[in-house]
């Protein structure tokens, strides 16, 4: 057990290192260089060689690649997060502390709603396998899986404006400042994300419950005359829901991909909006740092979920 935990944590570091190299590398293979693109974006008719060199030096582009990489990683670790945004001059550390909270809340609400909805639905679908509740739930999950998030968002906005004559509040407010405005703003992307997430989790729950229902110990429990509710609660669900937790962690990266676009459509000032704005402005320090941060959190959460899984389910073979 200890060896497994140690191995898993040790693997986390090279994986993160590899990720940082990929992101760093991608930002350096740009056709043309960053400085030239920044200058061409500014409304200056004529740029001297001197200004160009000055900008390159101030961006650290004249340093050897290893030094640039080292500087960046060091600033990621000491909380500077790669300096400041090229577009807005805002320190990235401030941007992170402001935006991370919003995305974390968005993800949290989505996860809560998903868990409340998907587990009962999955169980229901399994119990009534191939009967009408299963079919209704299946339609709900298939549509949730295949309607593109961002179009669903557009349709929701359109519906609210045309039919309800109502739009969400213009500005995002923190929960403690103005709870009503906060929820009226953030609930829409949450519902859309939760639909896709629920679709996925319901399918997983259903297939796990189905598998456990076929086990011998369930037949034994039934044959000794236990009430069906006791069989389900004590024997089936306990065993069926464990794998569901791991998959929940795995899906988190889909969740964040989705929030990337939805934050933009519903103008929620989270990490996703920051990355997209950075991508549009070619704001390299911002994309680089926010992306690595996102990957860091995802890898971290997956690690924790993985370890939890092994703790909850003692049947897992640690030698593997």
């Amino acid at each position, binding site marked *: 057990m200890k060896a497994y935990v140690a191995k898993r944590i040790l693997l986390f570091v090279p994986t993160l290192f590899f990720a940082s190299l990929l992101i760093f590398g991608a930002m350096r293979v740009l056709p043309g260089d960053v400085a030239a693109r920044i200058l061409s974006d500014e409304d200056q008719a004529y740029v001297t060689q001197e200004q160009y060199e000055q900008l390159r030096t101030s961006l650290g582009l004249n340093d050897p690649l290893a030094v640039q990489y080292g500087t960046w990683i060091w600033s990621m670790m000491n909380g500077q997060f790669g300096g400041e945004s090229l577009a807005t001059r805002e320190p990235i550390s401030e941007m992170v502390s402001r935006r991370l909270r919003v995305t974390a809340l968005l993800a949290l609400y989505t996860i809560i709603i998903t868990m409340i909805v998907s587990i009962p639905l999955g169980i229901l679908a399994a119990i009534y396998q191939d009967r009408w509740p299963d079919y209704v739930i299946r339609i709900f999950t298939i549509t949730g899986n295949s309607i*593109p998030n961002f179009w669903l968002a557009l349709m929701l906005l359109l519906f609210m404006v045309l039919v309800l004559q109502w739009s969400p509040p213009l500005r995002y407010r923190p929960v403690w400042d103005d709870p009503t405005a906060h929820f009226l703003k953030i609930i829409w992307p949450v519902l859309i994300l939760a639909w896709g997430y629920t679709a996925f989790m319901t399918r997983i729950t259903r297939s796990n419950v189905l598998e456990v229902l076929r086990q011998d110990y369930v037949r034994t429990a039934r044959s000794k005359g236990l009430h069906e509710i006791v069989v389900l609660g004590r024997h089936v669900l306990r065993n069926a829901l464990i794998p569901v937790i791991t998959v929940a962690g795995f899906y988190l990266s889909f969740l964040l991909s989705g929030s990337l676009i939805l934050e933009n459509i519903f103008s929620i000032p989270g990490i996703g909006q920051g990355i997209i704005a950075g*991508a549009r402005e070619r704001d390299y320090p911002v994309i680089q740092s926010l992306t690595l941060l996102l990957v860091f959190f995802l890898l971290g959460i997956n690690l924790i979920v993985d370890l939890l899984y092994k703790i909850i389910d003692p049947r897992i073979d640690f030698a593997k």
Partner: protein
Amino acid sequence: MSILSGILRFARRKPLGAFGGAVVIFMITIAVLAPVIVPADPYTHNPSASYEPPSWKYLAGTDVFGRDQLSRIIYGSRVSLFVGFASVIIGTTVGVVIGVTSAYVGGKFDLVVQRFIDTMMGFPGLVVVLVMVVALGPSLLNVTLAIAFNYFDKVIRLSRSSALSVKEEPYVLAAVAIGARTWRILTRYMIPNCLAPVFVLATQQLGAAIVIVASLSFLGLGVQPPTPSWGNMLQSAAKTNMELAPWLSIFPGVALALLTFSFAVFGDALRDVLDPRMRGT
């Protein structure tokens, strides 16, 4: 004859999957025949017909420039299908070769490949594509490459795991025993026997790729206007007053949702038929 009866049997066993397959074939036909079947030129501006609601003349209405939306949707299917198929073909080919080789050769190469997959699985899919498109610049080709890159790690993972079991099969051991070259073993014995699950994954990825390219174009980072794509049509619809011309944001999305839905149900049905172990998951 046997192909036809095979298709009929598939349709009887999996009606929804067969429906998906039919829609996909229909969309491909439309995309190929686009120049012949469009009612109007998708690029021609017609200021006198700006914001026409759907009618018999303009089945899906017109946009601010008076361009016929149905024609633009039909041309947009070309972008979706091209990126979908091209990225899946590239990703699958590269992924299978790396995955199977990695399983067969083992050793340090396999270790590096495994670390690489672990890393890639840590990235949110859209972020990988986004970073690559920003690095390479937005264009049809770069978007295709970025989506293929975001997908081939999954192919490696899947083909590697099936190759690990195929490697122990008697026919591979026999090939090794008679002294066949590594390259021959890989191409003749290993790869063909690892393809079934990869094929299923590829079908499901087609739908995902189409959503990603639409999402990117919607964010302004994919296919650039005036080339019509469903994503950038939705983007320009969202930018103008949506409630003024709701048809602009409805129809391209319907086409997109229909195609991804079709790929999803077709892929599921295919998986049930080809890979009984994964049935019902």
